């Protein structure tokens, strides 16, 4: 490759060019190495946990038994968060791209950026001290009237620090990223397709259904998956909102809640010793692999749709 460049450019490669080109390439390689390093170092430090016995794993008979309830909580919280956030995000994105006048749309864009700018620890603080207690009456009502649904079996938490509250906070936190990507994709709908629908006498909603959604389908899926990746890995909001006891349950409003991998690490790392640290790092590796796969898939869908469009 360098010989071809040399022919095209100057007859002999200058030293400055050679150094600079390799410097930039080295920087790129550093990033690849860092990513590989994450996997390698987490594995090295995590390995002792895979062979550890019950005495080191808080009574769990093996690492799988130790990590399973955490994984369950992680998936449950992330799924709930997405169920709340994706419809809202699509609504907000549509408002910006197709409903609001341009000035208001710009303003909404700023507000969404603001929502994304709030640090997660502040969301955690707000969720634990403000939102949780405010939701207690709702949880009591749900437990009284809808307890036949397993999700709302109750008894209602008196502090509001439930997995549902945590999921609501998570939903607010993933909303900006899902909104930003959906908005981008909605706005890219070819004008010709929109006008084709309008010229046939479609209402605005029918136009969106006919031309915007079919065009944006894969984009929405990948936006949701990027949101999922964020929700799976988000730590502080869950650690600070949830009063976790590490159980496996679908009861969303009681005071015994499943914990998540990330929150469990944050809550117990400072006091962990010996093999417990390895177990926490190993659980981090599990989280890394899951989020990596989710993000990988999401980005892959995005890059593929760019090619086909």
């Amino acid at each position, binding site marked *: 490759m360098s010989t071809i460049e040399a022919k095209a450019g100057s007859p002999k490669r200058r030293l400055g060019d050679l150094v600079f080109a390799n410097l*930039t390439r080295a*920087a790129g390689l550093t990033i690849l190495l860092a990513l590989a390093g994450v996997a390698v170092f987490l594995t090295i430090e995590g390995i002792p946990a895979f062979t550890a016995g019950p005495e080191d794993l808080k009574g769990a008979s093996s690492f799988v038994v130790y990590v399973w309830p955490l994984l369950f909580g992680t998936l449950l919280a992330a799924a709930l968060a997405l169920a709340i956030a994706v419809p809202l995000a699509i609504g907000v994105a549509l408002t910006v791209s197709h409903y609001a006048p341009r000035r208001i749309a710009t303003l909404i864009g700023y507000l969404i950026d603001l929502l994304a700018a*709030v640090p997660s620890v*502040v969301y955690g603080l707000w969720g634990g001290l403000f939102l949780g207690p405010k939701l207690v009456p709702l949880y009591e009502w749900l437990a009284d009237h809808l307890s036949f649904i397993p999700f709302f079996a109750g008894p209602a938490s008196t502090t509001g620090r439930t997995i549902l509250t945590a999921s609501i906070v998570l939903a607010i936190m993933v909303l900006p990223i899902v909104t930003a990507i959906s908005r981008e994709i909605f706005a890219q709908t070819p004008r010709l397709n929109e006008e084709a629908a309008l010229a046939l006498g479609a209402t605005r909603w029918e136009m*969106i259904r006919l031309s915007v959604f079919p065009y944006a389908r894969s984009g929405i899926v990948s936006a949701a998956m990027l949101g999922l990746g964020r929700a799976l890995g988000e730590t502080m909001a869950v650690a*600070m909102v949830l009063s976790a006891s590490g159980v496996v349950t679908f009861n969303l409003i009681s005071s015994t809640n499943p914990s998540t991998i990330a929150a469990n690490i944050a809550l117990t790392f400072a006091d962990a010793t010996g093999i417990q640290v390895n177990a926490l790092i190993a659980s981090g590796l599990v989280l890394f692999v899951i989020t990596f796969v989710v993000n990988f898939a999401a980005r892959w869908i995005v890059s593929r749709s760019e090619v086909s469009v």
Partner: protein
Amino acid sequence: MTTLMDKPSDALDHVSLKHARLPRWAPVLVLVIAFAASGLLALLLGWGPVAIVVVALLIYLVVLPTWSRVVENRRSAVDRFVTALVWVALGLAFVPLVSLLWTVIREGAPVLDAKFFTWSMRNIVGEKGGIYHAIIGTLLITACAAVISVPIGLLTAIYLVEYGAKSRMASSIRFLVDVMTGIPSIVAGLFAYALFVVFFGPGVHMGLGGGVALSLLMIPIVVRSSEEMLKLVPTDLREAAYALGVPKWKTIVKVVLPTALAGIITGVTLAIARVIGETAPLLIIAGSTDSTNFNLFKDQMMTLPVFIYYSYTQPGNHPEIARPMAWGAALVLILIVLVLNLLARVLGKIFAPKTGH
């Protein structure tokens, strides 16, 4: 002008363009009524402001389409319902934002005074202290992260745009950088810990580790934003420099980078704003302390997010003192992030090349 008017067609053929339509102000009227009704219910049942807004929006969502269905037709009703739904989604999305900002300001503002910014928590028990040590730690660790991330990120971006272009390695870096933006922050913290344990042994805590962890989160943001900015530099500019016999690396340093400088600075500032509020990695590797620590290479270092976290989770015997301090620190943190965001916009304007759009 000719008027080759055809005789009007027979009446059977007449299609009416009009149907009964709701007046222009109908949505506003319904919104006002919805809020009035919800407010009335709130008075009777003693709800808070959030409940009023939510219930009002739900009433709006039902009443307007129903009215439209009665007066207009099904399609209009569906269209109005979706329009209402979309705006209600927007409203619902901003309820938490408003509530959060309001709560943080209300709870945090009273705490802010000179002592709060100039004292640490060293030897302070049972009275209000300050967050000086946390601010110092946050600034040092974030600066450390920026020092690591900006050169690597910028050079990588240069590689991607100027050298790699469409090569296999460039496209895999580009892709993996995208994937990297999704690494959970706690995993970055664990990585830094696992890395440092290898060199310093178990139980390691130091500010540098925090910097490394944050840079793992910051590099992809810097790469992506710088890459976008470099791509915006017109090819003509590069070719003009080449035509003058300027070597490629000098063209990049003297022509391309200055042209893209505004965007790059904006991107870096936004990246700093993004990581300055990170908590989880610092909890693991930077630890927490009551004293001010200026040394990135030794001992635990307090940071604002970690301070907020511990003031909330471990308020000790005096939660009535620790809690307000947590809110105060949260307010300070949000202000720092906002200032950085504003700064990014201002810097972008200042350094923007005067040509172009």
